[in-house]
Structure formats: C-alpha cells, structure tokens
C-alpha cells in the first residue's frame, strides 16, 4: 500500500482533488511499464533454456530453470568481443580527435578576434544544417578515394570535426573569467599552456557532456559503418548484431538473438544507470544526438 500511496502523492498538480492530472500520471506509469516490456522480454528470453521451444518463447514469466546457454551460443556465433573492440576503437578514436579539434576551434571562437569570424562561424553552423547522415554517398566515395574503404579510420573520419562540440566548448570557454588567463600570461604561459592548464580543466563538465553525446551516437551508428566496412573482423557491434540477427532469425534462435542484443546494449545501459543525471542533462544540452 505504501508504494501506491507514494505514487499517488507524486501525481503532479494533484493538490486540489483534480482527477485529470492523476489520470495522466497513472497513464504515464502504465506506459512506462509498457515501454519496459521489450527489455523485460530480452532478459527473460536470454535466460530461457532452448528446450522450452518456440511456443514458450514469448512467455514473460521467467523460466524456473534459467540457463546461460543462449549467451554462450551468441558469444560463439557472433564475434562479440571483436565487435566490441572495434566499436570501442571507433568511439575512442573519434572522441580523442574531436577533443583536439573542438578545443582549438572553441578557443578561437571564444577568445580570439580575427578577420572573417562571423563567416567562419556560419561555415561551422552549416554542418548542423546539412544533415550529415544524408551525405553518406559522397562521403563513401571520398573515403574510398582516400584509400580508407574497409578501415576503421574511414568510419571515424567524417566525425573528426564537430560543430556541435565546438559551440559547446566555445560557450564553456567564454564563461571562464579572463583574469585567470591574465595571471597565467604574466607568468609567461604560452597559448597552448593556457588552454591546457586553465581552459580545459575548468570546462570539464562540458567536455564530459560532449563525450556522452559523441560516444552514444557513434556507439549506436549503423548505416555509415555498414557502408564503409566490408571485412567481418572490422564490424562494429551494430553491424555485427544485424548480421547475427539475420543469421539466427533463419534458425528461429530467438533466445540467442535476445542474448546478442543484450550484449550489444548492456555497456551503454549500465553506464547510463550509473550516471543517469549526467546523461540526461547532456542530452538536453545537446538538442540533437
């Protein structure tokens, strides 16, 4: 009863015996439960013994004899450690280069006066307007011409510069009092020393917000790596999972598919559950993934 009482108390704007907000809250609770069903099924199906057969596959009540067989099968059929490694390399590689490019560009926009500033600023803005996902065809041609087809570098390269990151960091840098920099100047610190020892450490929240957005979006990216990568051993998790799903679907090995899916989404989900607040505020700051 206490839980019900608590839920009821939490119903918003429900101070004056109004029924509508309470109904809205109840509806939201129900929908949140519906929202979780695919995850619930994934967990239950992963642990269900294959001997239960296809007819029990949809049962949401967990099996009384859970097994790790599906996880083992998925592990053996798909090369998940390799996919995970590739995805990690892609995300880390993109992020590291982005940190350099957005820090330098962010500093230039935040603190330097230069000819053509507005024009260049709009050139950056254009990247946001052009819907980069739609440019896969010309970018594939370019990656091929650079000799980077079927390489992880080819997957990473289009994302090395980030207009969004530049704006985010520019904003963080602008908020730093110039007095701090003045002091460093008097001590004879060079440009890069000031960026490295004053601007970057004081802008850590912005860097971590950007890291969350960048890693999440590239961890989940599918179409672009699908086009660039040809060799099975260079597949990232998403492409690996799609191939794996297509294979296992033919044999109706749904428990294995559930296990494979779980392996692909577990790292991000666990990180999210630990750093929930930070994730959510990063997504709000970003506007677009």
């Amino acid at each position, binding site marked *: 009863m206490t839980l019900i009482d608590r839920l009821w108390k939490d119903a918003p704007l429900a101070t004056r015996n109004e029924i509508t907000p309470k109904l809205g809250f109840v509806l939201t609770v129900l929908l949140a439960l519906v929202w979780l069903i695919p995850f619930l099924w994934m967990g239950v199906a992963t642990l269900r013994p294959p001997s239960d057969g296809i007819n029990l596959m949809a049962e949401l009540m967990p099996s009384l004899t859970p097994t790790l067989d599906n996880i083992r099968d998925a592990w053996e059929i798909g090369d998940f450690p390799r996919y995970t490694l590739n995805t990690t390399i892609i995300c880390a590689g993109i992020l590291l280069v982005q940190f350099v490019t957005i820090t330098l560009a962010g500093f230039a926009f935040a603190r330097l006066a230069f000819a053509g500033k507005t024009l260049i600023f709009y050139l950056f803005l254009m990247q946001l307007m052009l819907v980069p996902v739609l440019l896969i065809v010309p970018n594939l041609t370019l990656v091929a011409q650079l000799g980077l087809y079927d390489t992880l570098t080819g997957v990473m390269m289009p994302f090395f510069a980030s207009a969004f990151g530049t704006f985010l960091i520019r904003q963080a840098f602008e908020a730093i009092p110039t007095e701090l920099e003045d002091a460093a100047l008097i001590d004879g610190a060079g440009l890069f020393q000031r960026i490295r020892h004053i601007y970057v450490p004081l802008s850590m929240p912005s860097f971590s917000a950007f890291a969350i957005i960048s890693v999440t979006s590239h961890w989940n990216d599918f179409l672009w790596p699908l086009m660039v990568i040809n060799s099975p051993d260079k597949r990232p998790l998403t492409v690996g999972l799609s191939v794996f799903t297509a294979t296992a679907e033919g044999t109706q090995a749904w428990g294995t598919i559930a296990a494979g899916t779980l392996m692909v*989404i577990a790292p991000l989900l666990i990180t999210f559950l630990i750093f929930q607040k930070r994730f959510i505020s990063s997504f709000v700051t970003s506007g677009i993934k």
Partner: protein
Amino acid sequence: MSLAEPAALPVATSAAPRLHVLKRFSSGFKASLPAYLLLLPSLIFLALFTYGAMGRVLIDALYQRTTPKAPVRFVGLDNISAVLADPAFTGAVVNNLIYAVGTAIPSIGLALLFALALTRTNAVTSALRAALFLPVLIPMVAAAALFLFIFLPNVGLLDYYIGRLLPVLPNWLGDPDIALSVIMVITIWKNAGYYMLFFLAGLQAVPEDVMEAAHLDGAGPFQRLRYIILPELKPTFLFVIVIATLNAVTQVDHVFVMTKGGPANSTNLVLFYIYQQAVEHYDIGKASAATLLTLAALMGLTALSFRTLANREGGP
C-alpha cells in the same frame, strides 16, 4: 534535473575578446593567423566531409556512373528526372511523409504527457523517466532485433498476449498494409522519451506563481494547459518538431534489419532508397540525385531549425 546553462549564444560577445597580445596588431591577416591555425584542423574535416560532400552531390547528380569502374558520362538532369520517374522513389517519399507525420504526432504527444506527469523530481519520477528514456540509448538495430520477435506472427510476443483476441492474426511485418505502421510503433517507442526531456526542460520555465494564481482563479487542468503551459512551450514544440522530422528522414536502421523496404516497397524510406541505389545498384548518379532532392526538400526545414536552434542554444 539540471538543465541549467544554455542561454542564447551571442554571435559576437559584447565584451570584446581581450587577447592582449594580439590586440596590439591591427586586425589583419597577421593578427588573425593564430585563430586560423587553431581552426584549421576542424576546417579541413568540415571541408572534406561537409562542404566537399555537398559539392560532390551536386556534381555526381549530373553524371552517370553505374559501376565503380565504368567511365563517367555527363547526363545533365537525366538522373533527377529518372529518380522523379522512379515509382520506388516517389513511393519512398510518400512513405516517408506518412512515417514522419505518423511518428512525430504520437511521440510528441506522448512526450508531452510524460513530461507533464513527471515534472516533479523524486525517486519515483526519476525511475519512470529512466524507464521511458532507456529506448533512446539503444541502437536502432538492437530495437529492431527485439521488435522482430515482438511482431513475429503466431509465436511472437504481441500475438501470444494480445493477438489471440483478434479474429484473424495479421502478419505484422509481412502485410504491405500494416508493415509501415509497425515500423512507426518502434520509432515512437524509441523517440518519445527523448522528446520528453525537452518538454521537461521547457516546463521548468513555467512560472510557479502564475500556475498557482490560475489555480486560485479556478482554472482547471485543461485551461491551465491551454492558456499557460502550451504558450510557454511553443519554442520547445517547434524545436521538437524539427528534430522529429529530421529523425524521420535520417533513422532507417530498423528498415534495414526488419523489412529491407518491403513487402512491396511498403516500408521503403528515402534514405534507404538512397542506400539501395548507391550500394546495391552502384548507381551513384541516381543516389546523388535522390540525396540532392531530399536535401532541397529539407531546406525549408533546416532554415527553420537554424532559427530555432540559434534561439535555443546555438545548436546541437
């Protein structure tokens, strides 16, 4: 939730940048050089993969190149007219419009409901928000893998629990009349929690005392929503509509995993069509023409998003 910081990004700061050393020089090229060097790494990649790509789409659309090795041939606007005459393309455009409207309205509506219900911050609402936000974090490919089973005929989750109530069990993904709606359900499930965040942020701007005053004046929940909350959320709506539309054009991973555009092209979307032309038919000219048309169609929207984003926080 801390949604604090992003205020509008001023294009030029009013307190002029004070880089003392540089200020001594007149603002010529020499004075600008350090800034250019700092911008160079970013500009190289933007030039290659954004502006260059844009130019390349324009050029490629004018040439015919059906195999990677075949000689290119100038064909003028032939690719454009070929794409416009291709029923697969026009079909994909129509599907995409239906898909955009059919996913945007429900997911934005749900997002608003969720946000209104979960404005207060406490353990319960945080847990509910997290539950609704989880789908946002997983790859579309993974969502598609889960929903493949949910919509599996006869043995799938939906038929197992609800389908038995229907007189005839539909073949959810195999029926051209239903497949697009099924795809839309997944998108709504995946995106509603994302849009919820923006409404939650927007709701923080609704002044407490105004709500309280309306309350005292006897305004019911719908009146408060209509006359106080919705006007306050107008910029949020605009912003979310833009994102939802862009998502409708750029999210096609589930199409790839679940239907490959079928059955009978009923779930083909524009970006998937572009992918098919480029990768399956090696027809770069046609793919570029389709890209060009899509970009052109999105231009009105991007202008709008530019304004919205600029007002909001300087953009994504």
